[in-house]
């Protein structure tokens, strides 16, 4: 693997030449150095070849937690609460605590109904509308994609 000292060394040599772009390729990697169009300095891009040299064959990756596909039609005019971002879905503020909401809970637009943990940060999920929770689509701790439906709420008759 090249160190930053190695890259500096190469660039010292290149700086004295009219070379605009330089590629170094080995069995393991490719390094591309380019003179920046803006004038000052160089950029680097790396590409690492090959697959990870596994000591033992990797067990098949655990299947992603499949989101139960709840029929949307069953709920008529229900409003969907969707995941604001990808991550792990939690129904309670911490393990062992009571869930934020249950089926039947009444919520307002700014009620926190769940949290999604992404990159070690806890993100609150808000109901986004006034109504009653009629469906919770994901099991606690399940993995969700961005925009995946988490819950459904039915607006209250006004």
């Amino acid at each position, binding site marked *: *693997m090249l*160190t*930053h000292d190695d*890259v*500096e060394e190469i*660039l*010292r040599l290149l700086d004295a030449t009219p070379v605009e772009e330089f590629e170094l390729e080995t069995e*393991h*990697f490719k390094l591309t*150095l380019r003179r*920046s169009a*803006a004038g*000052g*300095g*160089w*950029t*680097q*891009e*790396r*590409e*690492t*070849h*090959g*697959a*990870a*040299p*596994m*000591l*033992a064959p*990797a*067990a098949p*990756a*655990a299947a992603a937690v499949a989101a139960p596909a709840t029929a949307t039609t069953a709920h008529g005019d229900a409003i969907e609460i969707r995941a604001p*971002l*990808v*991550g*792990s879905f939690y129904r309670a503020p*911490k*393990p*062992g605590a009571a869930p934020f909401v249950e089926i039947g809970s009444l919520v307002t637009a700014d009620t926190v109904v769940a949290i999604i943990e*992404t*990159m*070690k*940060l806890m*993100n609150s999920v808000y109901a986004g509308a006034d109504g009653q929770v009629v469906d919770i689509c994901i099991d606690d701790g399940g993995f969700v994609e961005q925009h995946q439906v988490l819950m459904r709420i039915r607006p209250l008759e006004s």
Partner: protein
Amino acid sequence: MIRRLFVANRGEIALRILAGAQRLGIETVLGVSDADLDSVPARLADRCVRIGPAPAAHSYLDIGAVVAAASGAAADALHPGYGFLSESAALARACEAAGLIFVGPTAATLAALGDKLMARQHAVAAGVPVVPGAAVASLAECEHLVRTLGWPILIKAVGGGGGRGLRRVEAPAQLAGQLELASSEANAAFGDPRVYVERYVADGRHIEVQLLGDETDVVHLGTRDCSVQRRYQKLVEEAPAPGLTAALERRITDAAVALGRRLRYRGAGTVEFLIDGRRDEFYFLEVNARIQVEHPVTEMISGCDLVAEQLAIAAGSALRITQQRLSMRGHAIECRINAEDVEHGLRPSPGRVSRAVFPAGEGIRVDTHIEAGSAVPPFYDSLLAKIIVRAADRAAAIERMAAALALCDITGVAVNTSLLARILADAQFRDGAVDTGYLERLLAADDRASARSAAG
């Protein structure tokens, strides 16, 4: 002598350790979760072993899985990196039981420093100033203590650290509720309900000292300033800490060495301090008993390879550097490029990188595990790359960093480079010696400015 090293980490630090070990002729084995099977570190390691599924609790935080993988690969040493299990006394003990060298302090040191009250007692015994405060077992004790401390106060978890488990309390009316919450949170997060209370030091600077020890002797490699932080997560770090008088710098490094000697410290470690610059006072915060994210700024100005020194000490070597022969040259700055969306309140942005162009050239170092095609899994932290520059002085280093950041071109996930550029261009940062509240104030001012322009 270490012949085969198991790396129990991921991301840029895994790559840093792998590369450092390979340069020393040490064979490397990397433990990978299912989310990292195709990562750049996995491709560049000499061998990889799967340690578990993507969630860290079942892979990078699973002591049994990590030690079994290292033993199964016939490694003779294990490097824990930072974060994850790096400061786990239980991992150090499990390594010992499995006949593996743990690259880090002894299990006893880790246990003493992991308990923040015990760490505080060691600091006091070494003559290092601590923030006025004490352990409290009840509301009555706390109320009594606050009469001498004054408001506001900070409630801290004894088992906490790294900024987790902290609560600031402004007024007596909040005390009972906050104390109870802090204790139950501490119990949930660290399995230890004990808390202690300290005076809240406003406008402090976060300054730390890099140590290396071999259980007999301890040397320091100067100071770093990590005051540019948000929610206790550092964003820009530099070495040496700017704007310290020679006398204050000397007192801080002497204090760190005194604590290291008292602990008979082994390996690389960092003593963190809170500095009240206006009063020329400083207080012990905690010891990070591991390599740190920001270690490259120290490497850039000292010429010392901290990972190589860690490995030498772990293999039983005495310190190879003496305090007299260490000399620091120039000024170094590190910027952390995180997968965070500046447009949306810095929310995390996992996904797949489509382009990853970084700066290169004199005085520039880039530590990253990211290239075009790399996955940024949602399971781990958001650090993608560290840009580190060195120049003759601080002003030149800031210019070099600003130019280097302008050359970064990362697409596919949102990154925080515009915020980093904003900080480097800010007059207050350029003046030096900002405090730990600086970044939050900068972000709040930007929010107000954009609200005004939206309204107008």
